[in-house]
């Protein structure tokens, strides 16, 4: 089996992607608080759900990217 190398560039990209997902999840939480008229402390108290939502976003985004790169490599061959 071949050794696989995760480059520093890749790590940085993934961390930034995760951070973007986390920011989006917080924005969604904020929108929900405004839309449903609930309390702003939920920005803190609901962080657990926000983290779960960020990870879910990240996974979805990763799946989309894998599909994209998969199709691209098939087309290039």
């Amino acid at each position, binding site marked *: 089996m071949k050794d696989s190398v995760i480059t520093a560039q890749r790590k940085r990209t993934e961390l930034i992607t995760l951070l973007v997902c986390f920011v989006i999840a917080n924005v969604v939480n904020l929108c929900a608080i405004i839309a449903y008229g609930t309390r702003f402390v939920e920005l803190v108290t609901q962080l657990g*759900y926000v983290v779960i939502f960020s990870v879910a976003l990240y996974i979805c985004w990763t799946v989309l990217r894998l599909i994209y790169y998969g199709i691209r490599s098939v087309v290039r061959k």
Partner: protein
Amino acid sequence: MDRRDFLKNLGAAGGTLLLASPWLSAFADVEHTRHSKARIGVVGPGSRGRFLMSFLKNNPKAEVVALCDIYRPSIDEALKMYPQARVYTDYRQLLEDKEVDAVLIATPLDVHFPVAMAAFEAGKHVFCEKTLGITIDECYKMYHKHLDTGRVFFSGQQRLFDPRYIKVMELVHAGTFGDIEGIRAYWFRNGDWRRPVPSPELERLINWRLYKEHSKGLMTELACHQIQVGSWALRQIPNRVMGHGAITYWKDGREVDDNVSCIYVFDNGVKLTYESIISNKFYGLEEQILGHLGTVEPEKGKYYFETIEPAPGFLQMVNDIEHKLFDAIPFAGTSWAPETANENHGEFILGKRPQGDGTSQMLDAFVEAVITGKQPPRIAEEGYYASALCLLGYDAIEQERILTFPDEYKLNYLNHHNPTTA
């Protein structure tokens, strides 16, 4: 909550508690009475009598010095608890006993009146199990005998001393649950209410609850406790009652109904509905106090507010998206949704699951009152009305008529005024 905790809590919030439950002032002299003893004679140490004795046994200020029963096995069981007690087979002999300060009456209902009246005459303080008498007239005479003799008079309404009911009433009277708009009380059991009888001639002595000459059935045995909760909460006596009763399931030769339902109407139109069936126990017992801001279920020891804290916005949003994606498309508006009750788990009134039912505190209060000779305020009146109201309900059921509380049996209490004594 043990006696010490109870008294400690009472001290901490004495002012407001005493407003809702003034009879708790019975505990005002607990320190001064520390070295005194109340000498008690028990008439009818059957199942309830011995249960009460088990609490007296734990109170160093109480001693059961005499027992009276016409059924030897009851005496033998009671003597196991108090082997030194003197034994009588006629209550009149017990009442002549100078060593007896107070009597505790736990006989079948029809025997309460003669024993209590003779006890007051003999200068004894009286604790009489509910229901006080078998007719409203008997209850009224007992109450007035207590006034005339100045002796202490308690009835077996233990909820009046149950910390969770006391707390509930404090909250209800403070308006925490808004205007009280209704009370739904019920007691459901699934059983024939019979006790095993060793020989047929003892049937009526042992299963006295099933026969009209000794008992008024579910109304005097169960409803008596629960109707009182309604008048305590509303600080009013309901003036009208209608009802119906029947023997629908236990057709075994009993005379009292096994299925009763009553509506008590307060002057402001608020109603207390009462229901008792003894062939289905799914709902158990409860007195639901329904305010426009919240509901209390004291038996469960819980209260529920009408508006509950909404779920976090994020979860509501997820929930809504989920419903939009997966629910069937409705063909009509939301008004078609069935109005089933909301899930609301409520809060415990005392912060935890209820323990005890006030019997121990009630007996402690009686012992204190016997020692000091002071009648705590309102306790006799609450006992009187608990009994009178359940008997009025019974009469309404029997006569199949709407009955009004008779003026001649009113006390000068709460919304009631008796023109002849005012």
